[in-house]
């Protein structure tokens, strides 16, 4: 025990004024990076191959704007279908029923194994498999043959070419593939929620659907959203793959078409880069606000701040 001192004798010590630790390594790295960046910008400006005037003149032509519109619509629809189907698959995967679990596992296995480019081309050629799509009772033809009677179980049918237009084929390829990835993301999110939450809600008499919708999903969203944001950005870029279905009115195809027609492919590739950069930036802003909305009740720190704090702790207080 330290001896008790009279409070009057204690004087507040002066504020510490110490020489801070120098970080020469950081300065050298920063200088090198600055030089490299300057060189890059210089190249962008001076290299005649970029033809900036041509890029600006052609990057906003009506077919390109139409292409941007198609790509965005494709992205939004593919993500909506992908997320909804992904939630269904994730819930199936966590079900008690082994058949539901198995089907979900099989779906995810197949669609994660196949490259989107291959899927896009495959769906573009679906017309080979079926001349028409009919909806009705399953296996009626086979049963009719077996029993030697005539049953028509078909409710309605559509020509494959009317249903599977290029756009539909491309959309399906992207959406079905996305669903497999989203299923894994959603499953991880659902599993991250404390089982005590489900119990508390069940004890209040809430139904399974209510528990999932009101209690579990909103909390899982915090885990689901960041990777879904990345998936959306990937999807925006992957809309360029449907050019191979072929879907001719999407962004990348249009820019390439102009470039090829006018023997200026490189500037149009640069224009494509700039378009994807701009659109992705808009998505990033949207992601920021969505994540903020779903982090309600989890403290004020954003993800970036948390990472910074962790880094600071690792390095010791500065």
């Amino acid at each position, binding site marked *: 025990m330290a001896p008790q001192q009279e409070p009057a004798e204690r004087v507040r010590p002066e504020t510490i004024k110490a020489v801070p630790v120098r970080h020469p390594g950081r300065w050298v790295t920063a200088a090198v990076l600055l030089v490299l960046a300057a060189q890059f910008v210089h190249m962008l400006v001076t290299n005649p191959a970029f033809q900036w005037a041509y890029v600006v003149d052609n990057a906003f032509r009506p077919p390109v704007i139409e292409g941007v519109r198609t790509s965005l619509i494709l992205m939004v629809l593919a993500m909506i279908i992908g997320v909804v189907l992904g939630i269904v698959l994730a819930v199936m995967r966590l079900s008690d029923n082994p058949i539901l679990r198995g089907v979900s596992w099989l779906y995810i296995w197949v669609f994660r194994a196949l490259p989107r480019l291959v899927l896009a081309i495959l769906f573009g050629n679906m017309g080979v498999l079926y001349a028409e799509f009919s909806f009705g009772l399953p296996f009626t033809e086979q049963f009719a043959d077996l029993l030697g009677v005539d049953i028509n179980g078909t409710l309605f049918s559509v020509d494959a070419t009317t249903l599977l237009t290029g756009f539909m084929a491309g959309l399906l390829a992207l959406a079905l593939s996305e669903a497999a990835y989203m299923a894994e993301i959603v499953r991880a999110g659902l599993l991250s929620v404390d089982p005590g939450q489900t119990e508390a809600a069940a004890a*209040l*008499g*809430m139904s399974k659907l209510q528990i999932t919708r009101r209690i579990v999903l909103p909390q899982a969203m915090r885990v689901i959203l960041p990777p879904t944001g990345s998936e959306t950005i990937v999807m925006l870029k992957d809309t360029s793959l449907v050019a191979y279905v072929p879907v001719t009115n999407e962004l990348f195809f249009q820019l390439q078409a102009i470039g090829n027609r006018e023997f200026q492919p490189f500037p149009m590739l640069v224009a494509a880069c700039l378009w994807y950069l701009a659109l992705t930036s808009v998505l990033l802003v949207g992601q920021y606000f969505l994540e903020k909305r779903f982090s309600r009740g989890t403290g004020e720190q954003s993800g970036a701040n948390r990472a910074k704090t962790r880094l600071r702790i690792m390095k010791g207080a500065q």
Partner: protein
Amino acid sequence: MTDLTKNADAGAPAEFMVEAEDVHKSFGRVEVLKGIDLQVKPGEVMCVVGPSGSGKSTFLRCVNHLEKINSGRLWVNGRLMGYREKNGRLYELRDREVAAQRRDIGMVFQRFNLFPHMTALENVMEAPLRVKRRPKAEVRTRAEELLERVGLADRMGNYPSQLSGGQQQRVAIARALAMDPALMLFDEPTSALDPELVGEVLTVMQQLAADGMTMMVVTHEMGFAREVGDSLVFMDGGVIVEQGDPREVLADPSHPRTREFFSKVL
């Protein structure tokens, strides 16, 4: 003091609020409950004590069918929990029917289990709004009233992460009361709290008991059992070793196992 409870059940009052008959429960090959018989009368406060692993929490979770029992019968308010008995055969109830049975039974958990994405007020309003589908204005008034009674009038807009453990547990009690339960189950409600916060939760529970609520309390707070409890059950190894008036059992336990346990915790 105003009445914290509201008896919502209009049916004929059952003789016992909880009645267990030879209840067994196993997890895999481990038998956790080895034949529990007990009755809780309406308005009674029963405290269940015992060492960890004795099966007391498991039994409490069987009462509202969070756990399925393997054999025996369990009635709450005269209704067989989880099953329908017809012509000598048991039929499992549908999820919807089990949910309906749970509406009259409030439960408070050791780790609070508040919904972290909702404010205190939203936590209390959730079940009456979604399960009972009561009008929002009415639910809100009642929720505010309940939060006021547990001493959290100035904390209604706070998220659980902004509340202390004691405050969270009081919100959890208000949330359970919002469904106007006939029975309240407390699963070690103060075990996860800092010692200085235990008192505020016990005070709310004591007030609830004084208002006539039927309560089953799994706890290590022997003081609460003595002061508030109408009956005390000592469980060990999946069976009830001893039960009776808490003051008598605590002062003079008849079974050696009970004596040994109390000598350690008192």
